[in-house]
């Protein structure tokens, strides 16, 4: 790809490459991404630095190729993966999922089930889906499009995805929380299992992130700034992966 102008990346585009980077070095695994920007991220990763990733068409096939978000998947079919096979792959472990939690606590416990009293929730969400099994079986990351104290809470109402403090015994063996990418920052986990501020996106201060987080986020030393997309990555995002700018609806500029 050629690029002749210096491009200025939007926040959504910074998030997209941060999501892509979460899959760096993953190799030949199923890369499952929920949300627009994570979907851009895994496709960008595969198209550029992580070519062995395997990606679903959203139904029951794994496809090669690179197709835009919000459009039907197009590419060579390389596998048939009905849900039953996906479940096998989940427990087998060759998968890295990026899910969208409604609540996350300081050790990466994640809730996608229900808000409020479990027996009579204030808000019923999807249900735990595969989060309990995912989080104790294979690498798990999260995407939070709106970083706020509503999402980052001191205690989640229902633990669907298992956090570091609760992963003990057989739940620990393959438990592997990787990153939380948000519209403000990238988080990873400190040695004690607590969520740690890994980088802040350009234009965001550490204090802003701390103020939008409902528990003490671990901060170690100087916090770096999240990287910008390269010009080639920007061109790929804008012209191929998301020509309709759906990413801006998820993270407005």
């Amino acid at each position: 790809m050629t690029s002749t102008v210096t491009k200025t990346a939007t926040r959504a585009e910074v998030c997209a490459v941060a999501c892509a980077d979460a899959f760096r070095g993953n190799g030949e695994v199923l890369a499952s991404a929920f949300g627009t920007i994570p979907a851009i991220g895994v496709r960008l990763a595969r198209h550029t630095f992580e070519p062995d990733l395997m990606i679903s068409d959203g139904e029951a096939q794994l496809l090669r190729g690179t197709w835009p978000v919000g459009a039907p998947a197009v590419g060579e079919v390389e596998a048939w993966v009905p849900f039953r096979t996906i479940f096998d792959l989940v427990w087998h472990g060759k998968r890295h999922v990026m899910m969208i939690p409604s609540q996350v606590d300081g050790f990466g416990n994640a809730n996608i089930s229900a808000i409020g009293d479990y027996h009579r929730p204030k808000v019923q969400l999807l249900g735990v889906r595969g989060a309990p099994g995912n989080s104790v079986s294979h690498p798990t990351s999260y995407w939070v499009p709106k970083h706020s104290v509503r999402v980052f809470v001191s205690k989640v109402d229902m633990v669907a995805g298992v956090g570091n403090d609760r992963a003990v015994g057989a739940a620990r063996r393959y438990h592997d929380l990787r990153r939380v990418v948000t519209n403000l920052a990238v988080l990873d986990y400190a040695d004690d299992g607590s969520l740690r501020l890994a980088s802040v996106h350009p234009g965001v201060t550490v204090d802003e992130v701390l103020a939008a987080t409902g528990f003490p986020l671990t901060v170690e030393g100087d916090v770096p700034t999240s990287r910008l997309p390269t010009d080639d990555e920007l061109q790929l995002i804008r012209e191929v992966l998301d020509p309709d700018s759906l990413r801006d609806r998820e993270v407005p500029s």
Partner: protein
Amino acid sequence: MADKRMTGTDVVGRLRSGMTLGIGGWGSRRKPMALVREILRSDLTDLTVVSYGGPDVGLLCAAGKVRKVVFGFVSLDSIALDPHFRAARQAGAVEVAEYDEGMLQWGLYAAAVKLPFLPTRAGLGSDVVTYNPHLRTVSDPYDGEELLAMPALHLDAAIVHMNRADLHGNAQFLGPDPYFDDLYCLAAEQAFVSCERIVPTAELTRTAHPATLKINRMMVTGVVEAPGGAHFTSCVPDYERDEDFQRAYVTAAADPGTWQEFADRYLTGPDAQWPAVRQEIPA
């Protein structure tokens, strides 16, 4: 060989209030909607519903047919949440047993192969065990690792919708995913298959691979020919999800008055008529 053809009314006649009912499909995909509507029109009540849930769960909750939902999620796919299930939960109107979706498969599989439980890691460490206090762990006799023992999910009856079947109960999926419908049938005392078309046995594999015959007659109690029987959920390659009608379903659910109109017109009124499939895919 037995001719297992029956009507939806026959199916409902074999069900009883208080039963545990498994419903095949996934989310808003290949749900046995015609049979669900038969249940809505019946006096059945107090059901325990086991489902990878979609509008089947929503409709049964809205009609007050459900005591308990055994689920991993309830979703309409293109619309994230089912409004009736959400309302029922938020009103505390239904009991739940919420499992990881792989645990649900394990429970059905255990029932299918007559095991009391199957071990798994899924659920450990999560609040699935907190809110299902009946769950127990089991020690690996070889290695000592403590795993969750997912109990068998025995079903009194199962209802599934397939693309084709013969009159004996051999049934075929032609879409991308068989989901877990064969497990529902094996886990159930009685299994009822509705289908788009009943065809001669030889027709089933004339152009399709035999691997599409995941459900065979020894697993099936009755077969109901119900063209459009999954509508408004998808039943590819016969038809896609009717997104317009699904939106109308969700919109109507927002208010008791509009829902009553919807129910009268499409579900339980004296002249109720469910709409025809509108997006048939040409053969």
